[in-house]
């Protein structure tokens, strides 16, 4: 049995934090025995811990850290299909394949996520309305699953092979098996640069309208909302759009080697900021500053800067201090969506719960995953510093979301109440049937699954 480490773990929000029994296998043999470890009551896979809440935590039970099983195994330049271990990060993919003209079909706002985490949360990017979620780019998944004799067995699933289990794994939050390998399609891109445009709009209505116009047709689109300002300027926003920049659009010397973008320098937030640093005033200043400095017109930027603006500041989550923060992300259907977004923002503003990041985006069609988050509608995401009163606010927001037919993103959740789950995710039963079939004894379990009654 490989050694386990007793460690206190949290995800990106630094809240909650639990003692877990961590294994970090470096070989497939070690992975097998970590899964089958009978000294822990259950196990859950953990990638790079970039979900925000408790999805990859397992209080007093087993966590399998996959970051050392990160090998790229095969790449087909003709189809763009990469076979790799689940612990491979999008950062590593970009380092190896962007210089060769390939980029992940879908990328979240951080490259420090693993393929396993991207599949298990069925992540979306700024191109959800055009390119779908990670599911659309996932061709096959190899899962490790418990068997009756205590050993675990490997099984490839795809749209042609146990499609039901494959679908349940897309957005299944690690509860349908430990992903060992997968085959994902990368997309050919003309350069390592993005032709980006920034446009200021005065209020929320204009921001929402923006998505229906030319801006909404761009491959990548997102809006940053200042949700602290009240009165006439309430909802002032910056619309951010982008396209992969064709070689001939690159200025002078860049065009000669369109895939050789500079690697960003990294800074690190050295210590946990005292929580006081994040009062509503300092955040207001930050938001206003961002609002002013954003460029009004188009410009060519390295893809890494466009997609991962915060990745160059390692451990930026520490600015929220020891107490941590939660990210609240919902998607509400387009019908009455504007009213829903306004009601949610209003509730947050009234609570004076300062938000660093308020991000709005239009989502397109859902994927096949019964527990996958994206659906057609507006998605809104905000970082909220953790306080004693935060959960109450989030519960209010959940009630509002449910009223408007919306749902919360489980990868960012640490406080949803179980009663909302079946309403938010109407295909929940389908998911549970798959769980009952492949893991009737709930050897797979997480703090999230227990909190939400997903083990029942």
């Amino acid at each position, binding site marked *: 049995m490989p*050694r386990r*480490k007793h460690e206190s773990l949290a995800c990106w929000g630094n809240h909650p934090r639990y003692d877990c029994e961590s294994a970090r296998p*470096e070989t497939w043999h070690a992975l097998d025995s970590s899964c089958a470890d009978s000294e822990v009551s259950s196990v859950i896979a953990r990638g790079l811990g970039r979900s925000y809440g408790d999805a990859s935590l397992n209080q007093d039970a087993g966590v399998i850290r996959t970051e050392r099983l990160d*090998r790229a*195994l095969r*790449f087909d330049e003709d189809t763009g299909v990469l076979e790799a271990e689940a612990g491979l990060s999008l950062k590593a993919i970009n380092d*190896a394949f962007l210089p060769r003209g390939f980029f992940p079909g879908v990328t979240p706002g951080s490259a420090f996520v693993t393929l396993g985490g991207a599949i298990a949360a069925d992540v979306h990017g700024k191109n959800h309305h055009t390119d779908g979620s990670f599911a659309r780019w996932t061709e096959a998944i190899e899962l490790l699953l418990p068997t009756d004799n205590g050993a675990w067995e490997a099984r490839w699933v795809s749209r042609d092979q146990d499609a039901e289990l494959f679908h349940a794994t897309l957005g299944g939050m690690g509860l349908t098996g430990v992903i060992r390998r997968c085959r994902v399609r990368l997309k050919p891109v003309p350069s390592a640069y993005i032709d980006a445009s920034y446009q200021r709009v005065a209020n929320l209505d204009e921001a929402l309208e923006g998505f229906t116009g030319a801006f909404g047709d761009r491959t990548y689109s997102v809006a940053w909302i200042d949700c602290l300002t009240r009165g006439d300027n309430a909802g002032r926003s910056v619309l951010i759009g982008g396209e992969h920049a064709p070689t001939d659009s690159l200025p002078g010397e860049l065009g000669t080697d369109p895939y050789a973008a500079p690697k960003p320098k990294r800074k690190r937030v050295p210590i946990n900021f005292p929580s006081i640093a994040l009062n509503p005033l300092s955040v207001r200043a930050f938001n206003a500053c961002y609002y002013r400095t954003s460029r009004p017109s188009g410009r060519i930027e390295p893809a890494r800067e466009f997609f991962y603006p915060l990745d160059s500041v390692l451990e930026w989550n520490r600015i929220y201090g020891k107490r941590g923060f939660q990210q609240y992300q919902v998607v509400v259907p387009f019908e009455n969506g504007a009213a829903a977004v306004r009601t949610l923002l209003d509730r947050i503003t009234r609570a004076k719960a300062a938000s660093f990041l308020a991000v709005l985006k239009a989502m397109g069609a859902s994927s096949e995953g019964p527990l996958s988050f994206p659906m057609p509608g507006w998605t809104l995401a905000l970082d909220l510093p953790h306080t004693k009163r935060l959960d109450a606010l989030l519960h209010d927001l959940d009630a509002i979301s449910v009223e408007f037919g919306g749902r919360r993103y489980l990868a960012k959740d640490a406080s949803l109440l179980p009663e909302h789950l079946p309403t938010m995710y109407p295909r929940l039963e389908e998911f549970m049937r798959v769980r009952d079939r492949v893991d009737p004894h709930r050897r797979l379990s997480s703090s999230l699954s227990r909190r939400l009654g997903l083990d029942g």
Partner: protein
Amino acid sequence: MSQERSKHGTVIVGATSAIARGIARACAERGDRLVLAGRDLDECERIAADVRTRFGVESFAVRLDVEDMDPSAFVQACAERLEGAIDRLVLSQGFMAEQSDAQGNPALVARTQTVNLTSVIQLCEAFVPHLRVPGGMVCVVSSVAGDRGRPSNHIYGSSKAGVNAYLEGLGPRLREQGVGVLTVKPGFVDTAMTWGLPGMFLVADPQDVGNSIVRAMQKRRHVIYTPFFWRGIMLIIRSIPGAIFRRLSL
């Protein structure tokens, strides 16, 4: 990259260790052709596939159990894969039992010495005549644990001290042929060997350690501590007089 892209033929033994994987990636990034050897052939195949897929280099997996091997057959296998051009031999195999388990356990003592010391000498002796002259290189991952014998870890430490002494002699022996010898003394590295062990501090990332080892090979260094600050720590520890060292509970 740039002018360093010299495409060495490099053999790495103990290839499944995290430090060795770090070395393999750093070598592949510079364009080396690699033979990756270990007792778990499937793992070695995956590591070979990884460097091939990421960096586009040629790579080969070979099975080798250093406790049960025919060194000259292994040299032969490597020479075939690398078409005769063996530039570098990197040895990273290692075994560390709990000191308390090894005490009074002849099998664990033998295993420690075989994996860490005997196999290192056997492989070096087998490869030396086949390394490129001049320009060849032998690099062995030893440990700071070989610098002083501590009650808490001296069975492992003695094997690494043996490695250090052997390599200290091998260096001058091969100097005239232009073959370099590098002794690597890592401090604590975050690998399977140390995962979950109590008392770890300043634990280094194995890829960083791998990068620093490959840089040291490029510069044809003789001895390195990695991360670098262990040189200072060990300078102090080595200078403690025996009479005092004996009273410290390390």
